[in-house]
């Protein structure tokens, strides 16, 4: 008996099977770039609406009080790391777009460079702010 279109569609392999792969610097950084991007979208939206509501409430001091909370401070520190991480891996992507740095050696090297640079940038940022 012939299978319906739906059944054939369901039987198709769904790639990529991420869970069977050993985590590698290239794959982990790629997922991290997406994850940090999604996180930054929510954080920039939240910060944008914080600013809008703060201004439209005629600068109600209650909006400044939330920065005393340790949870909000933790969130901002994570966000700052997410930003610098996304920046470093993003620059890596822009360099790839020029067709440069595609050897396995260069990919591993630039990957670890991005990780180290993002940690250093986060530390420098919080030292000065």
């Amino acid at each position, binding site marked *: 008996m012939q299978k319906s279109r739906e059944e054939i569609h369901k039987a198709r392999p769904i790639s990529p099977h991420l869970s069977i792969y050993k985590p590698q610097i290239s794959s982990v950084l790629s997922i991290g770039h*997406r994850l940090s*991007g*999604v996180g*930054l*979208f929510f954080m*920039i*939206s939240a910060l*944008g*609406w914080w*600013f*809008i509501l703060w*201004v*439209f409430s005629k*600068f109600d001091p209650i909006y*400044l009080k939330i920065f005393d909370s340790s949870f909000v401070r933790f969130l901002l520190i994570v966000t700052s790391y997410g930003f610098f991480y996304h*920046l470093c891996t*993003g*620059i890596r*992507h*822009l360099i790839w*777009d020029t067709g440069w740095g595609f050897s396995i050696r260069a990919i591993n090297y630039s990957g670890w460079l991005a990780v180290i640079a993002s940690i250093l940038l986060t530390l420098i940022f919080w030292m*000065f*702010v």
Partner: protein
Amino acid sequence: MKSEYRSDLSKAKNLGAAGSGSHHWWHQRLTAIIISLMILWVISFFGDISKSNITTVVSHLQKPFNIVMLLILFFTVMYHAVLGMQVVIEDYISCRASRFVLVVGIQIFAIITVIFFAFAAFYVMIL
């Protein structure tokens, strides 16, 4: 698609039937470069307001140059984020209806946010 159905000019332009499609990819890169360069302004702004109280921060924000830079940065970041969220949604949401609702919903949300942000920023400037 059989290659003979396409004209030589169509193949050379490499755009397909819709005549477009690569601008999302291109705008994603363009906004990425703009944001990366604008970090220089963000650093100088943070340097100005570092360890100062909120009234000083607002007075720095009232300078027209800073307000314009903040608006350009916020718009560019939101545009970049919408394009990125669209790629992620299109990759992981297989249901066409929810994919459409999410992508268009995020676009509308971003437009509303940018408009309100612009009003708030101008309100701060004329304060």
